[in-house]
């Protein structure tokens, strides 16, 4: 089955490891947090501060702020904009993402 990487003839450098809530996942150079999480089959990485509902990507271009996630202890990062580096620690964000 074709993949987007095939379609675009992409030959990125070697994959590297990042963590999601402590669990190791793979990321490719050039992938944003959102892209790597999608590739790992994860479509939500935060819960809303009112009703605790799951959210992930919505607008994909940094306008809707639904995809907020904590990266390297900094909460409120837009996953669709943040490029990943080896060893980055991604954490599911609950509510505002700041510890009470």
């Amino acid at each position, binding site marked *: 089955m074709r993949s987007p990487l095939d379609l675009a003839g992409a030959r990125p450098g070697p994959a590297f490891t990042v963590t999601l809530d402590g669990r190791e996942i793979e990321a490719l150079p050039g992938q944003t947090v959102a892209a790597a999480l999608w590739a790992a089959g994860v479509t939500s990485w935060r819960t809303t*501060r009112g009703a605790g509902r799951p959210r992930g990507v919505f607008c994909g271009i940094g306008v809707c702020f639904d995809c907020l996630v904590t990266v390297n202890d900094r909460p*409120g990062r837009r996953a669709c904009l943040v490029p990943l580096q080896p060893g980055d620690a991604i954490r599911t964000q609950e*509510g*505002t993402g*700041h*510890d*009470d």
Partner: protein
Amino acid sequence: MSQPLTCDVVVVGAGTVGAACALYASRAGLDVVVVDRGSVAGGTTGAGEGNLLVSDKEPGPELDLALLSNRLWAELAQEFGRSVEYEAKGGVVVAASTGSLTVLEQFAAEQRAAGVVAEHVAGDALYALEPRLAPGLPGAVHYPQDAQVMPALAAAHLVRASGARLFTGRTVTDVLRTTDGTVRGVRTDRGDIHAPALVNAAGTWGAGLAALAGTSLPVLPRRGFVLVTEPLPRMVHHKVYAADYVADVASDSAALQTSPVVEGTAAGPILIGASRERVGFDRSFSLPALRALAAGATRLFPFLSEVRAIRSYAGFRPYMPDHLPAIGPDPRVPGLFHACGHEGAGIGLATGTGHLIAQTLTAKTPGLDLAPFRPDRFPEEAV
């Protein structure tokens, strides 16, 4: 042409002061109509922070009104509390230097004599109240009576609870008077409303309504900006402001005055004020003013440096030359009552104002001496 409406009193202005007037007048047995050319909370109320403060007022008529109002707000909170986000959070006024602490403590002593609860706090006690304050502050005064409310919700719920007929999007174009000059109602762009009493709760636009009634009220706009942050858990527990805020309020300068005011909200964002400048009704955003607000706030609370502002809005406080509102009957126009000009304290003083207006409307002796708030206390402007 539609049949004119009739009622006992027309309140012009559906902001917090107008809403409070409607509520108390209704509960005193009057049939009330509220009119606003915009929406509920469309004026200064929609730009307010919802301060219910006694801490920033020096002894005198405004402080007396504030003490009365805070008591009334606490009563209303029993009825409305959650729906208007009422929080009896208390205020902490911080001094940046030992010199200003001395001045602050002297001020607090005078307020105490007038009935305000004010406690000196310093060292561990101060940082127990507000752990995230900048270190090394010499001290502060804690005012447990200060409270907060969400202004637009307050206006909307008070109006609804009053049972008054509410007409938004309706502009008053004239004040109708009998041949001897007594008020008999208003003309709007959608019909007349007949009433023997008219309450000017038009806030920053109160001068215009006074003029339609053939009289004058020197209300001028005093622009302020508020910075709103991203939603946060509770990190600032009181209304916290710097001691020089009081001087800013009392200043007559038209130039930009800023003094940090920081508070959390029930919904999450932190609100940061306060700026004052007299620039007419200029709504454009002034980056220098916003920067000054940010600088003041981050000096008080260093953690705010990393916090993002997601919004800012402007509002126009109704400013009177002697910094006191106009409350009560206008001797120049029988049937006309004023309830405007509260500068930055309108939300807090709304309940006291509404209560006093209801008393004067029903010919009861007002609970406070209204002489300092007389609308005709200013020399007549040359036309």
